[in-house]
C-alpha cells in the first residue's frame, strides 16, 4: 500500500467522520415538519370549525338582530303614533281647558254680578218689606181711625137724629101750646086744661156702632212649637202687637196662653204661659174667649 493511498484513506476517513457527524447532528436536531404540519392543520381545522360556528352564530345573531330591529321599528312606529295621538289629545285638552277657563271666568263674573244683583234685590226687598210693614201699620192705624171716625160719625148721626126728633117734638109742643093759648083766650076759664102729647117719641140716646179697635178679636192658628215658644199664623198686618195674650183652646177646653214677644208681618211668636196641657200645631189661638 502506497503512502498516497494511506493518506487518502486517512483523509477519507476524516471527511466521512465529519460528514456523518454533521448529518447525525442535523438529523437529530431537524424539525419534524409533517408533525408540525399536522398540528397546524388540526389547529386550522379547529379554527375553521370554530370560525364556521362563529359565522353561524353571527348569522343567527344577525337574523335575531334584524327581527329585533323590525320589532323595535314597529314599536317605535306604534309609540310614535301614540305620541302623536297624545300630542293631539294634549292640544285638545289644552284648548278645552282654555275654553273652560274662559267659561269659569265668565261664570265667576256672572256669579259676582248675580250676587251683587241679589244683594241689591235683598236690600230692595228689605226696604220694600220695611215700607210694607210701615204701610200696613199705617193702614191698620188708618183703619182704626176710620173705625173710630165711623163710630163717632154714626154716634153723631144718631145724636143728630135724636136732636131732630127732639126739635120736631118741641115744635109740636110749641104748636100745641100756641093752640092752647089761643083757645084759652076764647074759652072760659072753667074748662080744664088739655094735656097734649107730642107725636114724635123720645128715643134712646145714640150708642157706639162698633167696638173699639182694641176690643176686636184676633184669631190665629199655631203653626210651630219649639219648647216653650210657639208661632201663630197672624202678625202685625192683622193687628197683633207685642205683649198681647192669645188663649189657646181646643175641643177639650183651655190649653194655655201665648204672650207675644216677637211680631212679624204675617206671623208672631210668643212664650207659653199657664200651660194646662201641651198645645199642638193646628190649635186655635184667639185674643178673646
Amino acid at each position, binding site marked *: 500500500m502506497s503512502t498516497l493511498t494511506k493518506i487518502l*484513506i486517512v483523509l477519507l476517513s476524516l471527511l466521512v467522520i465529519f460528514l456523518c457527524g454533521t448529518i447525525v447532528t442535523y438529523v437529530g436536531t431537524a424539525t419534524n415538519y409533517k408533525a408540525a404540519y399536522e398540528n397546524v392543520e388540526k389547529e386550522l381545522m379547529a379554527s375553521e370549525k370554530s370560525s364556521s360556528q362563529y359565522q353561524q352564530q353571527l348569522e343567527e345573531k344577525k337574523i335575531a338582530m334584524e327581527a329585533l330591529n323590525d320589532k323595535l321599528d314597529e314599536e317605535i312606529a306604534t309609540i310614535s303614533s301614540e305620541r302623536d295621538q297624545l300630542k293631539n289629545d294634549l292640544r285638545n285638552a289644552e284648548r278645552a281647558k282654555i275654553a273652560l277657563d274662559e267659561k269659569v271666568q265668565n261664570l265667576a263674573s256672572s256669579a259676582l254680578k248675580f250676587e251683587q244683583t241679589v244683594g241689591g234685590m235683598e236690600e230692595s226687598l228689605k226696604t220694600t218689606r220695611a215700607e210694607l210693614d210701615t204701610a200696613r201699620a199705617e193702614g191698620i192705624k188708618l183703619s182704626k181711625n176710620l173705625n173710630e171716625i165711623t163710630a163717632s160719625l154714626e154716634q153723631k148721626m144718631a145724636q143728630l137724629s135724636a136732636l131732630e126728633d127732639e126739635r120736631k117734638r118741641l115744635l109740636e109742643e110749641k104748636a100745641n101750646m100756641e093752640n092752647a093759648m089761643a083757645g084759652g083766650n076764647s074759652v072760659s076759664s072753667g074748662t080744664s086744661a088739655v094735656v097734649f102729647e107730642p107725636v114724635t117719641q123720645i128715643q134712646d140716646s145714640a150708642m157706639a156702632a162698633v167696638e173699639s179697635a182694641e176690643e176686636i178679636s184676633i184669631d190665629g192658628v199655631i203653626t210651630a212649637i219649639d219648647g216653650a215658644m210657639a208661632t201663630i199664623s197672624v202678625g202685625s198686618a192683622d193687628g197683633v202687637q207685642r205683649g198681647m195674650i192669645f188663649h189657646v183652646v181646643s175641643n177639650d177646653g183651655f190649653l194655655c196662653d201665648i204672650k207675644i214677644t216677637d211680631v212679624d208681618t204675617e206671623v208672631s211668636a210668643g212664650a207659653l204661659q199657664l200651660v194646662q196641657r201641651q198645645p199642638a200645631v193646628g190649635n186655635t189661638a184667639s185674643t178673646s174667649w
Partner: protein
Amino acid sequence: MSPKKIEASSNIYTALLALVCGIAGATAGLVAYKCYFDYETLFKIVNVFR
C-alpha cells in the same frame, strides 16, 4: 515473466476504512429511519401543499 500476485492489505488502514464504511452505513441507516418514521417514505419528497 510470471504474473504479479495481488494480495489484499490487512492493516490499520483497512480497519480504518472498514470503520468509516460502518459509520457511513450507520449514518445512512439513521437517516433512512428518520425519514421513514417521520415522513413514511424514504425517497419521495413530501408535497406539503395538497
